[in-house]
């Protein structure tokens, strides 16, 4: 990501000229360093890095957050988390979200991008329309869909009634709650992935596509053997975002189901919220946080190493 070579290469002449001419040499640079870096580093250390370290420390205690943590219980919190059925349900749900993202959302986004990257009247308007759900707050989206799914007033209920059936309460049943959440996930995020693909398609080297056409490749062949392979980096990126996004999904679940009924639609973060934060079980909650952190970091590094080596 960073390119230290570029920095060194550009900065090299600076060292040469600095000694010879008047002007801020080391002094000037020093002033910048002590004025410009500390605010960002301080904020980042205080509110991002330290809390992660502290989570690891607190996770060894049975602590309600008041006074000092004194009741050291070692790895028991981790054991408690792993023994909770709801934790495994949450993990499974995160897995389901990833599966739906890969199996439904990604192909949908890619298909739409291929259709909308071409110019025709209304293409831009449709792009914007499909992107719109992404910028709406998760909370608002969740509330809108809790209306859509509502068994008495909702849209789904109304459709059911026109067929003369008793409307279901989708969000109140352990069988359907997670399914309902998954549909909202697709609704909310496919537009983002579509935009990624459209951006990639527009920066594609048109000559390659042209060349394939001239060589007699059909539309489908061009798509399969030229366009899609050129999109691989973006596809890998889209998968990366889908997985990281699923691991932090929380806001959307709260207005829909709060993780229920009976923990059937918890994600890892809503599980963390319901069991750690809302009851101020700092040690237990921190242990969940550390597990989530470990999953994110392991995934990010493995994924980068395996799939995004060249980027």
């Amino acid at each position, binding site marked *: 990501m960073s390119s230290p070579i570029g920095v060194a290469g550009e900065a090299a002449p600076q060292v040469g000229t600095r000694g010879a001419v008047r002007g801020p040499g080391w002094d000037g640079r020093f002033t*910048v*360093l002590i*004025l410009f870096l500390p605010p960002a580093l301080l904020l980042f250390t205080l509110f991002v890095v330290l809390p992660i370290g502290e989570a690891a420390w607190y996770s060894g205690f049975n602590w309600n957050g008041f006074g000092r943590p004194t009741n050291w219980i070692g790895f028991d919190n981790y054991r408690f988390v792993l023994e909770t059925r709801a934790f495994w349900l949450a993990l499974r749900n995160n897995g389901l979200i990833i599966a739906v993202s890969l199996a439904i959302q990604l192909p949908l986004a890619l298909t739409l991008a291929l259709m909308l990257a071409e110019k*025709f009247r209304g293409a831009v308007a449709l792009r914007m329309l499909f992107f719109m759900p992404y910028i709406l707050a998760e909370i608002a989206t969740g509330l809108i869909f809790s*209306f859509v799914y509502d068994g008495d*007033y909702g849209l789904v209920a109304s459709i059911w009634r026109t067929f003369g059936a008793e409307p279901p309460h989708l969000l109140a049943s352990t069988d359907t709650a997670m399914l309902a959440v998954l549909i909202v996930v697709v609704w909310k995020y496919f537009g983002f992935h579509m935009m*990624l693909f459209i951006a990639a398609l527009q920066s594609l080297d048109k000559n390659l596509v042209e060349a394939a056409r001239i060589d007699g490749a059909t539309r489908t062949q061009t798509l399969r053997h030229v366009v899609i392979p050129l999109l691989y980096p973006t596809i890998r990126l889209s998968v990366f975002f889908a997985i990281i996004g699923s691991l*932090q999904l929380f806001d959307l679940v709260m207005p829909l189901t709060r993780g229920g009924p009976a923990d059937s639609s918890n994600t890892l973060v809503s599980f963390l919220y319901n069991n750690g934060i809302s009851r101020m079980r700092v040690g237990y909650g921190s242990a969940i946080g*550390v597990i989530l952190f470990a999953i994110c970091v392991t995934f990010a590094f493995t994924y980068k190493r395996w799939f995004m080596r060249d980027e």
Partner: protein
Amino acid sequence: MNSAGARNAFDPAALFKALFLGLVAIFVLVPLLATLLGGFKSLGELRVNPFGLPAQWEWQNYADILFSARYWQLLRNSLVISTLAVALTLITASMAAFTFAHVRFFGSSMLLSYLTLGLLFPAATAVLPLFIKVRDLGLLDTYFGVALPQVAFSLAMSVLLLRRFFKDIPYELLEAALVDGCSYIKFFRYVTLPLSRPILATVGTITFVNSWNAYLLPLVMLNTDALYPWPLGIMVYQGEYSSEWHLILAFITLTILPTIILFLLAQKHIVAGLTAGAVKG
């Protein structure tokens, strides 16, 4: 769609495409339109007619909310928090990015990698210790208690995006300025920042949208209703009017309205900003 249809009315591919796009458009639009229109209905009508236009337009639902102090207070709180987050992010991130882009010093790439660690995990992982930290700093139940952690978590991406842009400013420009006795800080203030308006707008937009929509951090850090930003406030509202969906729908519509207006006005920056991670720092 139109041009293809004109060329060949029976082109099945074009027909399929139009159908597919139409279906997706309906899938996206129907919940949004039903929300907007639902706010104009009475509860009784909503039950029998959730899809169609209201038989009787109940402007009162919207008017009551628009003339309530509550709605404006929520928006004001959100605006204060988001503005704080954007301002602090732009200031701290651009200063740091400038240093990483133009000043050569020992440990530069190491510190940059340190900052980019922030990209790897969501704020939720450490939210309990973060709560205790904010409490110990005496910032619980203040705007800053929400805004500062938001800034901290947006720094990684912001610094990367800004640094990449700053590095494209020709080095000769800085060199010439330094030779003429201009300081780094003056160069930053009078050359780098004015030249970087597009990327500053992009970073500002990402931070704003994230902060405006945020739920978890304010939920944990704020206890007083009077300080709640709108995502918290709307959840409270929904709790109070639990099944009076016509009012809740009107409230949702009015709270997402600012986002939609902003989106229509600043489409370019928003799309660029929110997909910026894709082009990679």
